């Protein structure tokens, strides 16, 4: 055994915690190691000096009694669940480490009163009432929000220029009759063509083909633009933002507008270049010249009702106006429609005065071409444009002209009146 090992085991040797073999090894080392022997002697001396501390002290005679009572009570509780003899505690129970709840296990138990169940119908009525109240509340809130939203939308439309067009839906019978009339007119034109067959008018066919195109497109366009229509009862309310309307109008105009052989596409350019064109001997040059020479309202006579007049109010105004040109209007239509397209562009670029002027020119051309509906709407648009720049006096004049010339065009007239309702409120009913 080394010296270090012996040093570590001296205490174990002193307290007798080594087995005999190990103890003999340490003793053997001690016999030959003076240092370890000295240390062992010091340990023994200290132990002998502290020997009196090993004498046991006895607690007081009353020491055992509370402990034995608690032990008996606990044993009884663990054995049969009965605490047996109740321990009388004069001091704090916690200091004794007892569980007060167990000591008081035999205390009187207070019975809980039986809960009365409510009748089932009361519960059902309460649930039903709650559901009904919630539904009513949701309805009221929804209506309120919808009303507020509509009001805000109307106000925003006034602010931002968004406009709403309320048009009468086209009755199916009207459309059918219009189509029949159109077919009849077409047949009549073809008959007239045959009568004039002796005259060699070669380009007539090509122009007719171009003019026939719009006759087929309205239905397609209506179907395509059906997503913008919102039907409700007898009215169809169409809300069109300026941008969307502009795109629709331009698209429709491009699709319908007869493409002149040269590049210009606007009404003015067509009018300017159509005069000397020998290849298009039909009437547009003269019409365009007239329309530019004199204002539309100067000598416009109330036109006779057109044999075929697609209802403008069966679709959004800008679209239907462009698409509803009858086939026989192929000659003057480029001038009128060109003026209308130009007016629309001017209107959407906020050049309302130019737009109003162009609309009035277009109205004059439409009137001359025998399309009072289109003429009336052009005048209505002129009223709207003049109202937009606060030219209310002129707008009123145009509105009055519209009312005088086309009293049967109630929808266009209503639109013109609506544009002036801010400065020309409706007449109040007479007071009694």
């Amino acid at each position, binding site marked *: 055994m080394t010296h270090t090992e012996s040093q*570590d085991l001296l*205490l*174990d040797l002193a*307290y*007798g*915690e080594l087995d005999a073999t190990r103890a003999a090894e340490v003793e053997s080392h001690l016999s030959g190691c003076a240092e370890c022997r000295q240390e062992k002697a*010091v*340990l*023994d*001396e*200290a*132990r*002998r*000096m*502290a*020997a*009196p*501390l*090993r*004498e*046991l*002290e*006895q*607690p*007081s005679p009353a*020491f*055992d009694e*509370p*402990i*034995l009572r*608690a*032990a*008996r009570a*606990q*044993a*009884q509780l*663990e*054995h049969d669940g009965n605490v047996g003899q109740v321990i009388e505690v004069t001091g704090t129970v916690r*200091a*004794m*480490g*007892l*569980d007060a709840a167990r000591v008081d296990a035999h205390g009187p138990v207070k019975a809980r009163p039986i809960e009365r169940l409510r009748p089932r119908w009361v519960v059902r009525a309460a649930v039903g009432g709650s559901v009904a109240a919630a539904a009513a509340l949701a309805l009221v809130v929804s209506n309120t929000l919808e009303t507020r939203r509509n009001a805000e939308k109307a106000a925003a439309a006034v602010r931002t220029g968004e406009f709403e067009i309320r048009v009468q839906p086209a009755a199916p019978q009207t459309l059918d009759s219009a189509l029949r009339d159109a077919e009849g007119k077409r047949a009549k034109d073809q008959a007239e063509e045959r009568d004039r067959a002796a005259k060699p008018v070669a380009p007539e066919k090509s122009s007719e083909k171009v003019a026939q195109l719009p006759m087929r497109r309205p239905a397609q366009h209506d179907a395509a633009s059906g997503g913008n229509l919102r039907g409700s009862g007898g009215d169809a309310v169409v809300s069109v933002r300026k941008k969307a309307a502009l795109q629709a109008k331009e698209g429709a105009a491009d699709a319908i507008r007869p493409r002149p052989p040269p590049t210009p596409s606007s009404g003015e350019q067509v009018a300017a270049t159509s005069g000397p064109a020998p290849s298009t001997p039909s009437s547009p040059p003269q019409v365009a010249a007239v329309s530019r020479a004199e204002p539309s309202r100067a000598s416009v006579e109330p036109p006779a009702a057109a044999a075929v007049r697609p209802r403008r109010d069966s679709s959004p105004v800008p679209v239907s106006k462009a698409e509803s040109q009858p086939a026989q209007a192929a000659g003057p239509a480029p001038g009128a429609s060109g003026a209308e397209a130009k007016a629309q562009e001017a209107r959407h670029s906020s050049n309302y005065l130019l737009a109003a002027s162009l609309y009035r020119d277009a109205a004059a051309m439409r009137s001359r071409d025998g399309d009072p509906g289109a003429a009336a709407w052009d005048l209505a648009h002129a009223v709207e444009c003049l109202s937009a720049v606060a030219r209310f006096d002129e707008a009123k004049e145009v509105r009055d002209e519209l009312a005088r010339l086309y009293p049967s065009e109630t929808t266009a007239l209503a639109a013109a009146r609506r544009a002036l309702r801010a400065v020309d409120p409706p007449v109040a009913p007479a007071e009694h």
Partner: protein
Amino acid sequence: MAQELTDEELLAAYQQGDPGAFEALLRRHRAPLFTFLLRMLGDRQRAEDLAQETFLRIVKGAPAWERRARFQTWLYTVARNLCIDQSRRDRFRRADSLDAEGPDGQPSMVDSVPGREIDPERAAASARIRPLLQQALLGLPPEQREVFVLREQAGVPFREIAEMVGVNENTVKSRMRYALEGLRKALAAAGVSEEAASDEPVVDVRLGRA
């Protein structure tokens, strides 16, 4: 009959509802435990209170005791924890007056401390030098004192002390060496000679088999 059983067998019997088994345990350990607490605290009344509370906690915890745990280790662990709590509470108390009369009519600490003039007859009586020893013991650091008392007086082996205290065995032995050396120096300074203190040979004290 019950005296022949080990501590663990007695506790197991008590778990089965035999109150007499616990009574046997109590009689076996009451004095050693009380002495341990008295050496640690130096106050008979507080030592007795804590000894009672220790046994009551053993009663309360007996149903949950598992046989693989040694009863003596459990008992002294509970007592030690209570002792630590008590020491913490006493830390802020005023120290006991050295002029106060000792328990059971014993002389005060002042009267017990010998002067520079050593009276060999007085030092020879272990009963009379016990207050000196107690005072010297209380002067040790608590960690050394508890190791000394547990091993010297309660007879708990170093390995079990290490488990109870939560340190390794070498640390326990180191503390024990320091405690013995401290006591020896303190007693020598107090004039207590080895011959006066020990009127009986040093023996190994083991508890649990008394």
